């Protein structure tokens, strides 16, 4: 198990390095140097030179990458080109909002999607199963920013039940929770469908296995067979799906934060890209990739915990 964890973490670090090399390559390959793009065509050559030096753009690309990682190891992710504040501070300020948004969305999706999938299996072949199936595919097909805009229109503009923008008053839980409802629901909606489909599909497979017949032959009630005997096995592919899907949840957070003008990583990165604030872009991408990689590793370790057979393979 330990060797397995170490191997996974090493692989994760490799992914981080590759992503950052790709990011630097992308900046390097884009026509025009970042300083000129950032300052606009009417900037004086002195100002431009100053910015190029500050951003380290006079150094070769490979040196920039090495510098970046050397600084990152000491917790220094560089400085915001415009405000000169440390990127690490900006990211740490924005991160909690995005994490709360992403995790709430995920919790909603799991809490609704998994029971819907189970219900589909228990009522397979009935109208309820068909309705859940159609709705699932329907919500998967609707992009989260469309849900965001329409829910904004209905619940904030017309009904005035929920606030349209922001993340709520600092320290006021009720107002923060209210501000969280629509953005989280916008992200969660499609995932409810995904998870319901996934749980149903893998559960249908598990329900045909002989050990389910054994559980039936002892007269266990159907809900117990579904929720304990089948779900424990059927949830495993769903965990992998959700871990991989977290990348897409975080990227929908970018759109959703933009629509609801919600402070967070998404807003930080869109603003930074628009103002060519490369240190902020690089720092944010590094942190997000690190989070994404850790979640994937955590999911694999969780699967190993849930399935003793997997655990034994790793132990050996």
């Amino acid at each position, binding site marked *: 198990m330990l060797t397995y964890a170490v191997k996974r973490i090493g692989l994760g670090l490799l992914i981080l390095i590759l992503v950052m090399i790709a990011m630097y390559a992308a900046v390097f390959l884009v026509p025009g140097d970042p300083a000129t793009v950032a300052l606009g065509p009417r900037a004086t050559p002195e100002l431009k030179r100053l910015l190029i030096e500050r951003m380290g753009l006079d150094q070769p690309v490979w040196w920039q990458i090495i510098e970046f990682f050397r600084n990152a190891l000491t917790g220094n992710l560089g400085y915001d080109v415009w405000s000169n504040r440390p990127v690490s501070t900006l990211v740490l300020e924005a991160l909690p909002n995005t994490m709360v948004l992403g995790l709430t969305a995920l919790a909603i999706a799991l809490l609704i999607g998994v029971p819907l999938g189970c219900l589909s299996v228990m009522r397979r072949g009935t109208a309820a199963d068909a309705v859940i199936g159609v709705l699932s595919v329907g919500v998967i097909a609707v992009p989260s920013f469309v849900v965001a805009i329409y829910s904004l229109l209905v619940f904030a503009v017309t009904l005035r039940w929920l606030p349209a923008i922001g993340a709520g008053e600092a320290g006021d839980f009720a107002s923060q929770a209210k501000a969280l409802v629509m953005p989280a629901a916008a992200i969660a909606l499609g995932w409810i469908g995904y998870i319901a489909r996934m749980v149903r599909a893998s559960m249908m497979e598990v329900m045909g296995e002989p050990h389910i017949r054994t*559980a039936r032959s*002892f007269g*266990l009630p159907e809900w117990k067979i579904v929720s304990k*005997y089948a779900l424990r096995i059927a949830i495993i592919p769903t965990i992998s799906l959700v871990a991989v899907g977290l990348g897409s949840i975080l990227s929908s957070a970018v759109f959703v934060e933009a629509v609801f003008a919600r402070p967070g990583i998404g807003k930080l990165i869109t603003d930074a890209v628009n103002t060519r604030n490369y240190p902020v872009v690089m720092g944010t991408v590094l942190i997000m990739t690190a989070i994404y990689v850790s979640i994937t590793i955590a999911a694999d370790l969780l699967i190993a915990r849930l399935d003793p057979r997997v655990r034994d393979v790793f132990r050996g």
Partner: protein
Amino acid sequence: MSGSLSATGLSVRYETPHGAVHALRHVDIEAHPGEVIGIVGESGCGKSTLVTALANLLPANARVEGSIRYKGVDLAKLDAHRQRLLRGDEIALVSQDPMTAFNPVLTIGDQLLDFQHHRKDLGRGEKRARIAAMLGRVGIADAERRMHSYPHELSGGMRQRVAIAAALLTDPGLLIADEPTTALDVTMEAQIIHLLRELRRDYNGIIIVVSHHLGVIAELCDRVYVMYAGEVVEGGEVDAIFHDARHPYTQALLACDPARFHERLDRLPTIPGSLPSLTQPPLGCVYAPRCDRVFAPCASIAPPLVNLAAAHVARCHAVTP
């Protein structure tokens, strides 16, 4: 008689997109407490369908006719809920393949605890104590530790012992063992047969053992039903079936059992031909196309069940009492 089981005119057909499959036709069997009943036949003869029907575990596309009376209740007429209450309480099934019979992600102890769910009178601690005692009784050393094992950590023979323990834990009046040794190697098979023989001494319900292995049946059972193509073709005491078989199919089956040959043969005997289609069963005798004693009525008239002696019956035109 109280505690007895009798199936009368039991037929099961599966509705499939390609038409109905008549898996079981007009089967009559009976079993009394303390008896071990064997059901023998080749693959596809309907023996699994028969025990699945007795355990009320038929799939949704199965249609049942006839009756299964157990303790005065017709199991075939009970609703799904009442059937479920009988399973794991009155009726227990030891399923075919011990390698896949248990949930792979739950411990043995956890599953055996759940399987006693009908016993509302017992607490968790009492149920765990019963599991440990029962595992010891079926010959599992270190029962306490084994309760924390996952199925894949046990050998096939051990898992079959656990499966038997699970069934016995429910104190069933009817214990059905569906091919209990088929998935095991020969030494394990001998051990499991030995275990079942020991257990039957202080068990006073009905045991039904299904097997295609004549040796297993001969060693374990009091009475045997021989099945062919969804029908019981012959039934009787073990001695009568093994030494005085009257139905041509039973005779052919016995003649093909390698364990009964005294000298080495160059070529093992087989029954020529193959099983009839269960979608369109033959009008007359199901065995007629392969029978060496076939005569005029066999092809067109279904043979009656002929009473040969006390508890010895055969479904054949050629036999006479």
